[in-house]
């Protein structure tokens, strides 16, 4: 099951061009939704205003080379390893979900466009990565959803209470879970159930990519920009108006320990 290309098997019922068109439409919805989100919330305007203010308030100029170094640090720490999370569990869950989703999406696109029929068999690594990616999303996502999510962990709400902030994580988890269920049912040979779960999978996936203006899907685009801005503000001395780090503070107590109020 893990090495079978489910999209090639699906081409017996749905022509490859239809699958490819659907994927292309989803990509357009991501681009369009993100653009709409940016314009509607004026987040780009806010970002550049904030950038300009921070530059004016800075005590020193950040040169091109230093800016490049900050960009590399942002990519290496904040983006690739989710460095902004102070909670280790949350960071691991986010890394599982992020890399799982990337593997799942990239392999989906490759298989649908390059290996859409049984006549063009996909290398075994692609469907294997598709399944592993989906399982990683489920592991990180359900862990976050039931245990780490602040609504549950800090607010004490039921994990089954749904609010608008849950739109992205719920649609992502439902989409990926239904994708795995559809893939499994397809291997059992039950055409009716496979079609039922295919329909549900497509519905959840359409909601995931079509709800971008209302969900936090586009955080994957603007969060890196915000992380870079934060590093630049540290470097140019404006520091988001925060005080400078304490120098030569008097240390009270030698056996310092981590805070345990959270």
């Amino acid at each position, binding site marked *: 099951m893990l090495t079978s290309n489910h999209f090639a098997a699906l081409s017996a019922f749905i022509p490859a061009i239809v699958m490819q068109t659907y994927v292309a439409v989803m990509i357009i919805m991501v681009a369009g939704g993100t653009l709409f989100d940016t314009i509607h919330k004026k987040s780009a305007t806010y970002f550049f205003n904030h950038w300009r203010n921070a530059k004016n308030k800075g005590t020193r100029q950040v040169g091109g080379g230093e800016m490049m170094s900050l960009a590399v640090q942002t990519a290496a720490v904040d983006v690739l390893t989710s460095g902004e999370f102070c909670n280790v569990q949350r960071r691991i869950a986010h890394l599982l979900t992020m890399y799982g989703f990337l593997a799942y999406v990239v392999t989906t696109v490759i298989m649908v466009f390059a290996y859409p029929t049984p006549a063009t068999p996909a290398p075994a690594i692609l469907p294997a990565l598709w399944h592993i990616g989906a399982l990683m999303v489920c592991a990180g996502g359900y862990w976050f959803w039931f245990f780490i999510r602040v609504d549950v962990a800090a607010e004490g709400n039921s994990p089954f209470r749904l609010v608008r902030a849950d739109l992205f994580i719920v649609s992502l988890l439902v989409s990926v879970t239904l994708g795995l269920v559809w893939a499994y049912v397809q291997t059992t040979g039950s055409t009716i159930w496979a079609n039922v779960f295919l329909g549900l999978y497509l519905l959840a996936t359409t909601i995931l990519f079509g709800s971008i203006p209302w969900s936090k899907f586009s955080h994957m685009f603007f969060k890196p920009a915000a992380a870079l801005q934060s590093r630049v503000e540290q470097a140019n001395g404006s520091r988001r108006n*925060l005080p400078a780090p304490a120098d030569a503070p008097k240390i009270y107590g030698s056996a310092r320990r981590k805070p345990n109020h959270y």
Partner: protein
Amino acid sequence: MPTFVYMTSCDGCGHCVDICPSDIMHIDKTHRRAYNIEPNFCWECYSCVKACPQNAIDCRGYADFAPLGHSVRALREEDKGTISWKVKFRDGREKNFVSPIRTTQWGTIKGPAEYAEPSQEDFRKQELAHEPESLNIDGGLPTLKPKQLQKAVV
């Protein structure tokens, strides 16, 4: 000055929700970010300001004595054991303070359960539990002498 959250800096970790003694820091339902649901009920203890790992919480002064343009920012440094404060006034003046997170050694303050259980006789005393030892006043509590007491009686 009650607190408020910069939602673009908040990452929704929930530390402020956990620590707020007034239980007024909550997570909003649209963006899953923290916000102060009722600034009027804020005790202004600044626990959330100090606990926020993203430095996303600031203080908003009341309009009558601290109109727009001021800011109060706190930086908590766990490794140094300090909290630095930067207060900017509307007229441009700036004041900076550095305070220790605590002024006693870890383990030097006993918890309530570590003290001996009070007896029935202790309940009839004027002092509160474990006083005067717990007040750390050399020579005991300052009290009026008998002559002073007589003068005080009208």
